[in-house]
């Protein structure tokens, strides 16, 4: 369980994280989504005691990070997969962490297997790792102490599509076992695959949160058919508000409602999906555009 209460970080006049609050309950994989410079990493560093908050607080399992007994056994953290000494082998990185956490060498081999790093790869120096391999190593380090909570910053960055699906499976199993996962991403598509719930952040503030389905269906349903004019009049007759967009219609109703009307009236549908012009994607793109106009913040 991760609880964030009114967390704020200011650097001089710049507010990197602006009064965010949310609680991640056990059993969930929550995506922390936002464009670069939105404040995701700063928020995660505040959760793990690396950056002192200007105000507010973050607790893990009811304790602030600095109060946690043997943090590695309770909270698995990966804040930057590239932040590893290039002269150490992958296995040695985990061995050193194992000494500090107090777990056995056997557990090191176990997590190496869990993240799919082979014997030969584990013996290579991190200098020669691809970004995807560093991500796997970072996740192995986070899992080393069999924690209850995982905090991962951009864990899917650098993974191939297959790797992203692998990560989804890994994190899903972790959450099904009662674990709590918070992972960040700046790619909507990526986080849609891995996470079940989303917290969206832009310019330091939370702009949306909820389950993926709920957020994706926001703004109604987009539908396209062979005869949009006829479909629009049928929907209007059924008292469903319809807006015409470039190609197709945005309907303020569940996809099921639209689909049933189309089926009854034998209209051929070409596309039917959750989310209209105000959907998650548009919202995210809006945020990205607004942030990039302001230049590179943080």
């Amino acid at each position: 369980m991760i609880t964030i209460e009114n967390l704020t970080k200011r650097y001089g006049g710049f507010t990197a994280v602006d009064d965010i609050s949310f609680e991640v309950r056990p059993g969930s994989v929550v995506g922390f989504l936002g464009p670069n410079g939105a404040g995701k990493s700063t928020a995660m560093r505040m959760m793990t005691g690396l950056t002192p908050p200007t105000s507010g607080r973050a607790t893990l399992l009811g304790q602030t990070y600095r109060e946690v007994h043997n943090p590695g056994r309770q909270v698995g953290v990966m804040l930057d997969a590239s932040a590893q000494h290039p002269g150490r082998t992958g296995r040695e990185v985990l061995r050193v962490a194992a000494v500090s956490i107090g777990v056995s060498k056997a557990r090191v081999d176990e997590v190496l297997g869990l993240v799919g790093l082979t014997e030969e790869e584990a013996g290579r120096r991190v200098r020669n790792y691809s970004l995807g391999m560093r991500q796997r190593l970072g996740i192995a380090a986070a899992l080393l102490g069999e924690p209850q909570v995982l905090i991962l910053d951009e864990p899917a960055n650098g993974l191939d599509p297959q790797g992203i699906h692998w990560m989804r499976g890994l994190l899903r199993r972790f959450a099904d076992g009662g674990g709590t996962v918070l992972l960040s991403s700046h790619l909507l598509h990526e986080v849609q695959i891995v996470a079940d719930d989303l917290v969206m952040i832009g310019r330091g503030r939370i702009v949306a949160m909820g389950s993926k389905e709920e957020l994706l269906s926001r703004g109604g349903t987009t539908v396209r058919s062979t005869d949009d004019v006829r479909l629009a009049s049928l929907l209007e007759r059924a008292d469903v508000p319809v807006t015409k967009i470039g190609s197709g219609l945005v309907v303020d109703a569940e996809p099921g409602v639209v689909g049933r009307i189309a089926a009854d009236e034998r209209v051929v549908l070409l596309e039917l999906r959750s989310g209209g012009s105000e959907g998650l994607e548009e919202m995210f793109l809006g945020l990205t555009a607004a942030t990039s106009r302001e230049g590179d913040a943080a």
Partner: protein
Amino acid sequence: MSTTSLGTDTTPVVGGRAAAPTPTPLAGQPGVPFSRTYRAELRKMVDTRSGRWMVIVMAAAAALILAGFVIWGPAEDASFRGLLGLATLPLAMLLPIIGVMAATAEWSQRTGLVTFVLEPRRGRVVLAKALGALSLAVVVLAAAVAASALANVTGGTGEWDMTAAIAGGTVLALLVYVLQGVAFGLLFLNTPVAIVSVLVLPTVWSIATTAITSLQDVGRWLNLDTVTGPLFEGEMAGQDWARLATSAAVWVLLPLAIGTWRVLHREVK
């Protein structure tokens, strides 16, 4: 846990099932036991390519100097004391660099993102690094003693002219230099800057205090190289201890204090 349940009234909840049992944290002191932090930090000093090479270069330099001196040096000076004095020369220069690297790697290689997450009480990590560097110095020094003894028996005079004062003084002086390395590392948190500073600044200061007449008095008290002289010779007397303490305070304890403060307060990125 009361604060958390209070929080849920106002804090929006995302994900999970309401019915899921609330996990409880493991009971115990914050952080990890110091012995484990110490072992991890000691291990990190020699498990990288650069760390291992530092030890190899030190050993090779000491061995070469000993061999060279035994073969070509003046035979009458090749006593145990003379040989050990030579063998410790590369150590005095290179051991501080191990201290520097131990202190700076967390920042220059950004491994602090892992280290300070596993032990958020950074002061203990700093202490573990300092003690680790000192321990490593003692081990390397013990090897140098063994090598000097071997050189003495095989090619030296076979004379065992070592006193407890010299032995103790040599150990103490080397430990002061190692701690200085750690201190400079913590002060600058940047490997090249710290290494150059720890090698060049004392030398520049040494030259200045010798060359400039008005600085000579100050130099007698604040030149670490000068004040450790009697220590290596085993001839510490009267004011020598006060001078050593003064120099060590300025060149070791002051940077150590400022550097530790920096590490405790710096944001880890």
